[in-house]
C-alpha cells in the first residue's frame, strides 16, 4: 500500500479551497472536520440545515445547550452575526443556490458527477436527511473521501452501483491520494501525492483519469 493522506489531511486540503466570506455547509461526520482548518485570515460562514448560519465551535463538555445543535445533533455555539431561521428558509438557502460550497462524504462518485452517499442498499432502515438537498444548489459540491474502500475497491467509478443521492452534482473530489475535478463527464486529475505515479493512481480509480498539462503535487502538512 502506498502512502496516503489521513482524514484530517484530506479535510485540511479541502479547507484550503474555501474562500474568505464563503458560505459553507459541511456534511455530517467526516466533513465537519473541514471547519478546523480555515486558512488564517479567511472567515467562512457555516450553515447547518437545522437553521443556523454563522455558528461557532463546539462548547466545552458540560456546557452544551441542546437547543443549539448542528445537523449532526452535536452542540455548537453562537458568534457575533449568527442568525436562526426555520427549516424551509434553511433549505431555501441550499436549494436556491446561496451556498458557495457543500462538502460531503461519499460511498461512490461517478465520472458523470453522480454521487452515492446515503444508502448502501435495501437492507436495514433507510435514512436520507438533507443529503439529497445539499447536492443541489451549492455553487460547488465537493466530496472528501478515501480514494478506495477498505477492501481496496475504487470509490471513483464510471457509474455508481449504489443508490444515487444526486445526478451530475459533484464538481471536485478530495481523496486520500489526489484532487480530481469532474468536468464534462470526465475525471480530471489536478493534484496527486508526489510519491504516486499516474499509472498507480489510475489502477486505483474506476474510471479514466484525464491528464491535463499541469498536475500539481498534493502536499499537505503533518497534522
Amino acid at each position, binding site marked *: 500500500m502506498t502512502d496516503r493522506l489521513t482524514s484530517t489531511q484530506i479535510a485540511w486540503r479541502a479547507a484550503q479551497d474555501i474562500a474568505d466570506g464563503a458560505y459553507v455547509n459541511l456534511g455530517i461526520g467526516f466533513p465537519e472536520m473541514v471547519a478546523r482548518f480555515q486558512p488564517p485570515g479567511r472567515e467562512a460562514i457555516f450553515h447547518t440545515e437545522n437553521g443556523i448560519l454563522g455558528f461557532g465551535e463546539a462548547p466545552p463538555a458540560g456546557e452544551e445547550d441542546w437547543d443549539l445543535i448542528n445537523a449532526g*445533533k452535536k452542540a455548537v455555539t453562537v458568534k457575533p452575526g449568527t442568525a436562526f431561521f426555520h427549516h424551509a428558509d434553511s433549505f431555501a438557502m441550499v436549494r436556491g443556490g446561496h451556498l458557495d460550497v457543500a462538502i460531503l462524504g461519499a460511498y461512490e462518485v461517478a465520472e458523470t458527477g453522480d454521487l452515492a452517499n446515503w444508502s448502501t442498499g435495501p437492507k436495514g*432502515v433507510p435514512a436520507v436527511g438533507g443529503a439529497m438537498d445539499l447536492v443541489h444548489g451549492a455553487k460547488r459540491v465537493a466530496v472528501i473521501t478515501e480514494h478506495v474502500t477498505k477492501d481496496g475497491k475504487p470509490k471513483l467509478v464510471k457509474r455508481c452501483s449504489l443508490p444515487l443521492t444526486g445526478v451530475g452534482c459533484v464538481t471536485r473530489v478530495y481523496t486520500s491520494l489526489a484532487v480530481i475535478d469532474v468536468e464534462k463527464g470526465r475525471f480530471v486529475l489536478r493534484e496527486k501525492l508526489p510519491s504516486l505515479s499516474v499509472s498507480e493512481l489510475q489502477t486505483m480509480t474506476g474510471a479514466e483519469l484525464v491528464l491535463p498539462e499541469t498536475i500539481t503535487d498534493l502536499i499537505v502538512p503533518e497534522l
Partner: protein
Amino acid sequence: MDKTLPTVAQAVAEIPDGAVVMIGGFGGSGAPIELVHALIDRFLATGHPRALTVVNNNAGNGHVGLAALIEQGMVKKLVCSFPRSADPRVFTEKFLAGEIELELVPQGTLAERIRAGGAGIPAFYTPTSYGTDLAKGKPVEEFDGRPYVRERWLKADFALIKALKGDRLGNLVFNKAARNFNPLMAMAAAKTIVQVSAIVEPGAIDPESVVTPGIFVQGLVEVAAPAQEEELNRAGARYPEIAA
C-alpha cells in the same frame, strides 16, 4: 380571545384515532416532549389515540418522546427524513418487524412540503431527489433545461409544537435552533397546539420578532421547565417511568 389551555392533558384531548399529527423538533431540539407524553398518558388511560400518522424529521431516540409514542404502538406510519439516532432501537425494531410504515422524504423536501401545506400550494417542483430512488413514481418536468421532481403539499390534522414564549393570541418565539420545523408545522395543521415555557401578555413579544403569528396557533399550554430529550436520554429515562 384567549387560546391558552390549562393542562397538557386537555391540550391533546381531541386528537382522534388515525389522525395525521405533525410533531415539531429536530432530534430532541424543539421537540414538545410534554405534549407527546400527555398523548401517551391518554392512550394508556383510554386506548386512544392509536393508528396515528406522525410527521417528524426523525424517528425518536431512546425511550422518551416520539420514541416512547412509537414504543406504545400508537404510530401506524411515520413520515420523516432521518430515522436514525444515537439509539433508534424502538423505531428500528418495529420497522424491521413490519409493524410501522415509513415514508422517507429528503429533509428539504419535507420542510417545503409542510410549508406548501400551510401556504395553500398543492404541489411544487424541486431538483432534490431527481434521478434517485426517492423520486420513483413522481412526475418529472424540465424547466429551463433542467429536470425537477414534483412534490405534493403535506398537511396535518394536528401539530404538536414547542416554543419558548407565547402570548394568549398565539404569537410565538422559539429558542435558537429549536425553531427548526416548528413554525412550518404550525402553518400546516388544522389545529396547532403549542407548549411554551412561558405564556406572556400580548405586547410582551416585539411585533418585529414574532416568528409564528397567532393565526397559525389554535391552543397553547405552559410547560414552565420542559425536559430536553438529549438530557433525558443521557440519564437513561423511559416514559412512562419504570420504577428504578
